[in-house]
């Protein structure tokens, strides 16, 4: 496998690079219970574009909790110019996830090495929204942006659960009649269910498996081939983006892994999920 992937996978085994000094909680003795809880909380924070936890992507470089309950998290991104709206969402979500833990007195999340680091860090620390943080440069908060990318995640998830079924002999007609409850248990299925629930889309056991993620309406059998084709393209696009991001992050930081960084390689991430569902 490629150099970036190999180096990124080192993160899973906990090996340390030149910047290991930044990562006291990942020491040989393992993180203490406080930082473990923080990392578990950060596992629930996702890159909205890539639909993966910021931890497994390698974006978390440091996670500290003082005896007094002061939490500090340091984040990094693959490039200096990563889109500021997504960067803001990740910093704000990380803040919310950590601040919600019991026993935390004060939370600080610092995004490093980004063109808008100061603006984003200041805005999140002040609990200002995106519009206020980027005064004059934004007209609305990021809920619409986030929902748009959740819909893409639903499409990608649809591909991840349907392709194995079709490969196993399920016919299109059978697929058309299936509900979420008919899905065999898998991480991909759990993930799809969770994404649909987040969007307020039908997510009960008797909800149709194939729906339009914009409206929630069942996909007709006629429309299924195109729907599944689009789902597959969406999944591949997200995977390819994640591959590029991982490679650039590895290059930018000289292959030093982040805390709990993992690389699913080129397999379907639905089957290699780092398990954020279990953490919730």
């Amino acid at each position, binding site marked *: 496998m490629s150099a970036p*992937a190999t180096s990124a996978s080192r993160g899973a085994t906990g090996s340390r690079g030149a910047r290991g000094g930044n990562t006291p909680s990942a020491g040989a003795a393992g993180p203490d219970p406080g930082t473990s809880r923080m990392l578990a909380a950060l596992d629930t924070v996702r890159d909205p574009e890539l639909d993966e936890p910021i931890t497994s992507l390698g974006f978390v470089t440091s996670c500290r909790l003082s005896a007094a309950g002061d939490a500090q998290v340091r984040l990094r991104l693959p*490039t200096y110019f990563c889109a500021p*709206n997504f960067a803001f969402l990740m910093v704000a979500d990380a803040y919310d996830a950590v601040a919600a833990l019991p026993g935390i007195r004060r939370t600080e999340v610092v995004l490093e090495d980004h063109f808008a680091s100061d603006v984003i860090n200041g805005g999140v620390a002040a609990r200002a929204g995106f519009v206020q943080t980027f005064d004059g*440069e934004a007209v609305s908060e990021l809920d619409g*942006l986030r929902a748009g990318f959740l819909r893409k995640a639903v499409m990608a998830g649809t591909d991840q659960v349907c392709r194995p079924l079709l490969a196993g002999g399920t016919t299109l007609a059978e697929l058309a009649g299936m509900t979420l409850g008919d899905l065999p248990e898998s991480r991909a299925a759990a993930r799809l269910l969770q994404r649909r629930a987040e969007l307020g889309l039908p997510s009960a056991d008797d909800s149709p498996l194939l729906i339009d993620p914009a409206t929630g309406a069942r996909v007709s059998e006629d429309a299924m081939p195109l729907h599944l084709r689009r789902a597959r393209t969406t999944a*591949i696009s997200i*995977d*390819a983006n994640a591959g590029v991001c991982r*490679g650039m992050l590895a*290059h930018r930081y000289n292959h030093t892994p982040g805390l709990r960084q993992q690389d699913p390689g080129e397999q379907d991430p639905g089957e290699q999920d780092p398990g954020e569902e279990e953490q919730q």
Partner: protein
Amino acid sequence: MYQKDGEKYFVVDGHLHYWNAAPDNWVPGAEQYAKGWIECFHAYQGLGPPETHWSIEHFQKYSEDDLMKDVFEDGYVDVAIFQPTYLKEWYKEGFNTTERNALMGERHPGKFVYNTRWDARDGDSGIEQLRRNVDRFGSKGCKLYTAEWNAGSRGYKLTDPGAYRYLEVCQELGVKNIHVHKGPTIWPLDKDAFDVADVDHVATDFPELNFIVEHVGLPRIEDFCFMATQEPNVYAGLAVVIGGLMHARPQFFNKVMGELLFWVGEDKILFGSDYAIWEPKWQVEGFMNWEMPDREEYADYPRLNNDGKRKILGLNAAKLYDIEVPAELQGPGTPGAHEVLGEASPQRV
């Protein structure tokens, strides 16, 4: 020209640069952006094979001789299309301007095509500049970087009223190939800056223009594919797909190529090395040696034969830019190239 198994292939590099991103060209007060930009590009280079990586110093500023050797001597390229990127808020003389490209290129007649650029926010003076550039450099195409920062603004959309004025002038002047490069910022910042819906609109409104979406819309390959399949005048610029995936993520490369062949098709895909991010040599060789693996997960993707590769590697771009292709390099299955050459004057180079 690339040669394999007795077959010869005409190579048009549809996307390359001759930049100066060294500290001597950084705008005082904006050094962090100039530095961040070139370091970001350098990280992209990290996705290619290790033996093709450059030091950051070399990458910031390479010479004319470097380019001529990497692209034409070693890289098999017959004709290369310069795609300027100005970024004058960060780089004193611009990152890679039409003028810089042409001053270098005029010492090598016949090798280069000089695309120019415009910015929808530059108003009348920008339109005058566009007219002058087309007159002086014979540009038949332009490169638009919609995320460019300009006097406090962080970007624009092609559907902005200002952009329509420029597109009308392009149509009038015969600047028929509009290369669109999306970046991470736009106004307003709460929208997805990589969204290609604006390309969809203008492709419909300007049917005489061709819109080449660079790096196939990455990171929005899916949106690009769904759009391009419906618009006859939308093309895929392959820069970044080969450079960024073929070595680093070969299986994703197979899948992305499969998707592009399915939705867009081999007649509307253009090779581009994105030099100096990546050298063309390994990209041309790898692409010509690439085949869709014979595996179940790729079973429903179209296959790409040598005729298809010939189009992607050069003939499709030659058609868009009226570049003369020597008869022995036109290949057997490409009558389209003949038709174009019969009626159009060769590119002024």
